[in-house]
């Protein structure tokens, strides 16, 4: 069991993150202080939440490029609602964000399910459409901190047991996904649909419906993130989370979710997101010129993926008895 874990992708990611932290600590010891690690986790929370949703989609052999636009749209809607009805309680805002996000995800899902349009095409389209709608409903204008109610802005910052609410959201989402992925028929059917869609049909799993649900879940996470993002940065505008979709996909892939579907784990995804989060937070503080950051994170993605692939490479079949021990 333990030796199996040590050889797993998750263990390697843990090792990578730990050595990364050690490396950073040599240049900037304060980075690894618990307080700062909490900050890093908090900052990575949105990436974690989105990556969880994206994981479901990628497991079913699809991809959701519209998550960042969904974040922007949901964020703008809840921010607008907040300016119009400052009294609306945060619970209601959260509910609206979840439902709206899920609906947007369901649109993607329906197009994939009912019309069998490839997911990358659907979400490439909805990504621009969602952002366009943000522009239309906001008329291109920003909603700034002073226009938002205090309750709206303060919620993700509220601390519970030393952790901000934003972090707690990420933790709860991860726990929910662990249960959902491992212990519910839906979670298992994600693997079945992505691993072997033909076979899934034979076992009575509706491939399209499962993909639809994956998109809906991804959308719901994007909706949740929409509120968290807007309230955390206290601003809503067309371009928020611009280009974030690729970072979310990168987190999944680094975490060992196979882009071909059917392979991956919640723990891997979480670690993939944390890996990126640590890099992103560390680069500005260890005095690396801002101009180096892009190249470094690009290299990190390539190296992680090359490493992952080397790890997961099928070694071919072992037929020779003499080869069995070495393999």
């Amino acid at each position: 069991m333990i030796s199996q874990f040590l050889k797993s992708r998750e263990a390697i990611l843990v090792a990578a993150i730990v050595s990364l932290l050690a490396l950073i600590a040599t240049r900037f010891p304060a980075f690894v202080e618990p307080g700062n690690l909490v900050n890093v986790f908090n900052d990575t929370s949105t990436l974690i939440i989105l990556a969880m949703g994206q994981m479901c989609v990628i497991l079913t052999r699809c991809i959701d490029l519209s998550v960042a636009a969904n974040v922007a749209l949901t964020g703008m809607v809840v921010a607008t609602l907040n300016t119009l009805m400052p009294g609306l309680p945060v619970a209601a805002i959260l509910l609206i964000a979840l439902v709206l996000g899920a609906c947007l995800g369901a649109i993607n899902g329906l197009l994939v399910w009912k019309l069998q349009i490839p997911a990358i095409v659907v979400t490439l389209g909805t990504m621009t459409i969602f952002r366009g709608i943000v522009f239309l409903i906001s008329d291109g204008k920003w909603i700034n901190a002073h226009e938002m109610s205090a309750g709206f802005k303060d919620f993700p910052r509220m601390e519970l047991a030393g952790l901000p609410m934003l972090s707690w959201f990420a933790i709860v989402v991860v726990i929910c996904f662990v249960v959902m992925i491992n212990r519910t028929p839906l979670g298992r059917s994600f693997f079945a649909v992505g691993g072997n869609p033909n076979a899934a049909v034979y076992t009575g799993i509706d491939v399209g419906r499962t993909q639809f649900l994956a998109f809906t879940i991804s959308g719901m996470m994007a909706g949740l993130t929409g509120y968290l993002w807007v309230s955390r940065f206290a601003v809503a505008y067309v371009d928020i989370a611009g280009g974030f979709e690729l970072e979310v996909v990168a987190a999944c892939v680094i975490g060992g979710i196979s882009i071909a579907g059917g392979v991956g784990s919640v723990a891997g995804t979480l670690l993939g997101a944390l890996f990126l989060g640590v890099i992103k937070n560390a680069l500005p503080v260890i005095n690396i010129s801002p101009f180096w950051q892009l190249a470094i994170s690009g290299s990190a993605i390539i190296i992680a993926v090359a490493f992952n692939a080397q790890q997961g490479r099928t070694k071919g079949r072992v037929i020779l008895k003499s080869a069995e021990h070495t393999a």
Partner: protein
Amino acid sequence: DDMRIALVVKALGIGFFEAAAKGAEEAAAELGGVEVIYTGPTDTTAEGQIEVINSLIAQQVDAIAVSANDTDALVPTLKKAMQRGITVISWDSGVAEDGRQLHLNPSSNALIGNMIIKLAADHMPDGGDVAILSATTTSTNQNIWIEEMNKVMGNYPGINVVATVYGDDLADKSYREATGLMQTHPDLKAIIAPTSVGIVAAAQAVVDAGKVGQVNVTGLGLPSEMAGAIESGASKSFAIWNPIDLGYSATMLAHALASGAAEAAPGAEIPMGRMGTLTLDENTNGAMADPFVYDASNIEEFKSIF
């Protein structure tokens, strides 16, 4: 036919430019027979602005007044516009000399450079570390102001600029950069953000880091967007020129040139309605007015205006 003047901004949706558009409309109303086309890309890219300008050329507008995302990249397109008989001026963020007839600086660059460091220094009697949070690496005006600021640093002994970072005029990136600054430089006394997006994000980051009173955020911002930061104390003061006046003046200048009432030559004096006249220097640059400082005493009054 109405004279059509296009006000091309860095990106649609930014409060500062929305206010400028108001000023442009005011000028148009005052002049009469002028139609203002307020347009721009949706993200701050030169390519986006070029596409917009190309379609303005196609519409044969009479004048283009642009706040540029890139000093140089717009030049060929704007040159083409001028070849087709369109008056081209830049305002706020300038275009290289070849690409426009004149440039309207919101204020003198030297003055702004001095202003932003002075605002920080005023609240740092014992000196200390300051850092700069800029917009994109390609933003013309930010780069110039920072350069001007560096020139006068000698006048502020004890104050060190320890870092310059770029938030790309994105709220989240600016926020993260500001957070990074406070971590790397625990003794940081002030963050100077000469951009209206960055300054708001930096103020939020200071509040979230619990460093209100420790780190002062200052620079250039809009009263409407900065009201919260002043209230929370994250920012003690900041400056800005009046964007309404800026849009108004740009429109007046464009009209004057396009109607042939004035010519953009070094030393020329061009009337700008209620804003007086603009005097062009040898590079056909002119400056509008001094930036105005906002703090707790006057923020209430201005926050509903722009």
